């Protein structure tokens, strides 16, 4: 009972608050000039002290990007992006290499404390190792020692480039090649930092790894790149969170996440995406154009994506699994909530290539206000994928008569032993359920929160504990004021 009461208080507290992560931190920044050209790319590469092969990769990606056209097939609308009006590199000014927490800019620490992310290892935030990326640069990775004991490499992408170039060179661009799509090409050209994680053979990561992304500086784009490799028998649960200040102009976030799982390896990737969604009139907010892809390369490997999408003015992302290894498993659990003028076009791709591969897709969309929320997913069973199995369920909930909920599944089956099922429903909150709650003295807004949480439970249950609580709160905030 006590817990229940506490929880309700929390919900109440958060439902009456605005976007609370919208502050701006006054941190001295080192920024590149606005605009994009080969010189900027050389500058980024130089600032990061990168080897020649990486610069070549960036330039190749940039030249390819110039030839590409911005995709327009998604169910989203936005004014054209002026790619020359964006700052492609912004980093907190560093005093060379940091060796301990004392050397970190106190303002920066304050920022993370406000976000509720403790970088202080003494505080041991529920045993989660955090890599914090502010604007474009990774500022701090915690729990290095514990991880080192298990030979797990968890560091910023730039550090990995310096310290483990052979691994980066071997795996970067394997899941998401720079030719993949417009925003992946852009990211490959200008990515500034991100996280790198390597789980050696037979190691199960004893703690959850987490990256926290924050856009801070104005007019900047954030282009981070995450690469996770789990060798034979490895296991890791990886969390990703993100916030941004409230600004009137739109900011671009174009990230790339690559996961590679070898034989018997398992990677669990959870995201709570809470970029600034713009104000009630739809002004400002982050454009979240992200390419995430995992390759189940080995036999019996498993990649599981869980995402809670509540932020961003526009979300455009399809975390996908290439099921190459025999008996490999891909999972996608998603809750996407849109309110006011937010737009989301999100879903997954499950490509069955190996034999006896399985995939599960559970997608729960919730639209309110004037928002549009689309599920777009592809399930492809290639000719040689014997005994492939897919189950997809995509439900949409509509809260309000001005919003839209859409489902665009693509099912392509080229093997007669495949069993593919897809079902989807769209409806509004059941009057009966609302009545039942209200009859018991729960007011309208709380009742909706309750029902929505119940509706999303199937996905929220897949999240690690701390994230699940945060996600529940977020759902409530995002939907605040959406009741008619």
């Amino acid at each position: 009972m006590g817990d229940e009461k506490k929880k309700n208080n929390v919900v109440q507290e958060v439902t009456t608050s605005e976007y609370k992560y919208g502050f701006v931190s006054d941190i001295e920044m080192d920024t590149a000039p606005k605009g994009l050209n080969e010189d900027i790319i050389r500058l980024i590469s130089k600032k990061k002290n990168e080897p020649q092969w990486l610069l070549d990769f960036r330039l190749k990606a940039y030249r390819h990007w110039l030839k590409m056209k911005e995709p327009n097939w998604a169910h989203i609308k936005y004014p054209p992006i002026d790619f020359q009006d964006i700052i492609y590199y912004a980093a907190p000014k560093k005093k060379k290499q940091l060796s301990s927490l004392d050397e970190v800019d106190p303002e920066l620490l304050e920022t993370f404390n406000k976000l509720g992310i403790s970088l202080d290892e003494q505080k041991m935030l529920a045993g989660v190792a955090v890599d914090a990326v502010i604007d474009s640069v990774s500022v701090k990775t915690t729990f290095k020692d514990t991880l080192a004991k298990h030979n797990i490499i968890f560091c910023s992408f730039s550090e990995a480039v310096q310290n483990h170039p052979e691994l980066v060179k071997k795996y970067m661009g394997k899941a998401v090649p720079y030719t993949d799509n417009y925003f992946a090409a852009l990211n490959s050209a200008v990515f500034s930092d991100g996280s790198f994680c390597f789980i050696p053979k037979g190691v199960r990561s004893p703690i959850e790894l987490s990256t926290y992304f924050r856009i801070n500086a104005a007019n900047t784009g954030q282009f981070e790149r995450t690469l996770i490799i789990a060798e034979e028998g490895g296991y890791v649960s990886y969390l990703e969170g993100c916030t941004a200040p409230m600004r009137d102009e739109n900011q671009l976030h174009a990230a790339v996440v690559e996961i590679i799982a070898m034989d018997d390896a398992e990677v669990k990737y959870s995201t709570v995406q809470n970029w600034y969604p713009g104000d009630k009139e739809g002004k400002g907010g982050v454009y979240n154009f992200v390419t995430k892809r995992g390759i189940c390369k080995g036999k019996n490997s498993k990649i599981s994506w869980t995402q809670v999408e509540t932020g961003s003015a526009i979300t455009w992302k399809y975390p996908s699994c290439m099921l190459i290894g025999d008996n490999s498993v891909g999972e996608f659990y998603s809750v996407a909530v849109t309110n006011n003028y937010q737009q989301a076009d999100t879903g997954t791709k499950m490509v069955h290539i190996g034999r006896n591969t399985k995939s599960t897709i559970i997608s729960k969309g919730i639209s309110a206000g004037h928002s549009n929320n689309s599920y777009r997913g592809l399930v492809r069973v290639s000719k040689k994928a014997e005994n492939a199995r897919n189950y997809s369920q995509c439900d949409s909930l509509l809260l309000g008569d001005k919003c839209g909920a859409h489902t665009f599944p693509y099912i392509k089956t080229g093997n007669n032993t495949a069993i593919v099922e897809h079902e989807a429903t769209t409806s509004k909150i059941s009057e009966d359920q609302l009545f039942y709650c209200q009859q018991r003295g729960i007011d309208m807004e709380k009742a909706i929160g309750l029902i929505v949480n119940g509706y999303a439970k199937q996905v929220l249950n897949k999240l690690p504990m701390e994230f699940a609580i945060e996600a529940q709160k977020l759902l409530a905030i995002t939907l605040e004021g959406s009741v008619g």
Partner: protein
Amino acid sequence: MKTNQKNSRLLSSLLSYYPRLPENSNGHPVVSEIRQKAFERLKDIGLPGNKDDKWRDSGFMDIFNREFKMETEPAPYQKTINEIFECEIYDFHSEIISVLNGHYYAKDPEEIRTLENGVRVGSILTAQKEFPGLFDQYFGKIGDDQTDGLKAANSAFFKDGVFIYVPDGVEVKDALQLIKMVNEQGNPFIASRNLIILGKNSKLTFMHCDDSINHLSSFINTFTEIHVGENATLELYKLQNLNDESALLNNTFIRQGRNSRTSAIVLSLNGGKIRNELHIDLNGEGAETDLSGVYLMDKEQHIDNQVYVNHLVPHCNSKTLYKGVLDNKATGIFRGYIYVKQDAQKTNAFQKNNNILMTSDARIDTMPFLEIYADDVKCSHGATVGQLDDEALFYLMQRGISRENATLLLMNAFTSEVTSKISIEPLKNSIEDMIKKRLRGELSICDKCILHCTVPDKPVEFEIDLSKI
């Protein structure tokens, strides 16, 4: 996305043929204007390309570069269609209308027939002259797709077609059966256009059959506009049994008025390449539509069903159910699209697509889409791809039914969910028999009707070897 094909042989033949189009010379002004506009659009957008989302992976792309014959003359009337093509369904009475090579085929093609209760049936070319008021009010009003070059090609190049008018309050007893056939050498491109108008409180059963009588190749581009008036009832059957060399594009646009009902059943039994686009506009409150289809494809055949249901006003119901079996190297596409406009509250829309793949070379792409802008709705869709249930097969075989027969029985059961919806008993029996024969591989095309359809003394039954029980 402008990714259409602009330099195929078909397109250049069409563009160079347009000035010589005989139908254009003495046409009705409204039609001439529509033809001209459509031609300009075709010139502008070209034919659909593989990058166009609605045409992705379509099997039609590879025929665009064939050599086509544009000119076809109306064949002189010699025999009734029944002498050329026997399609008698036992105990099924229908009024037959024929279109041969895209031209209206009758003793006097200029005559508009008047059936019981004042129902008018005739050539669309004659109708535009004889009933300009009615014609102008309805012709070209739906299906104006700005992005599809093949629809534009139909509007610009249609040779002829059928006009049917059912006056207010008239319930037509016997079905009207349109039999379309091609008997022309040289790979003709045949565009035909139909306009069907159902007045208030009327009722019509319309069968639209596409058949081959030989193995000649052709590309048939059909466009049908159907206006279903207030409280009217339309039963539409499409029966497609073509040879493997044929390509059939069948665009049907239906606009439904208040409290009207439509049921459409599309049966694709054979054909080289078939694309059925069925667009329903639920334009009056209380309208209902029930769409279903069965497709049975084998060899290297290609079937593409595109079903668009637009809920434009509140209180409408729609149901879509398509089932298909793909054998050998056949490929199939199903795209269902339910669109619910803002304020189209109290909408119920359901959509289902089930597929069975028989071989690992067969392929099916299914895309059941929902686009919903109203909140007080109940919409759902489901799609499955799978095989016959092994346990069910085992159960039947255990009882002495051979694997082959057990498979047939199960497939028959699979399709019967659709065929059981056919309300005319003789037609239902006949179609179920055709499906059985098709599943056994006995039916290729309605080759002079080798079937003799169902006659009571020749029932088609599955053979069960009693000695093994």
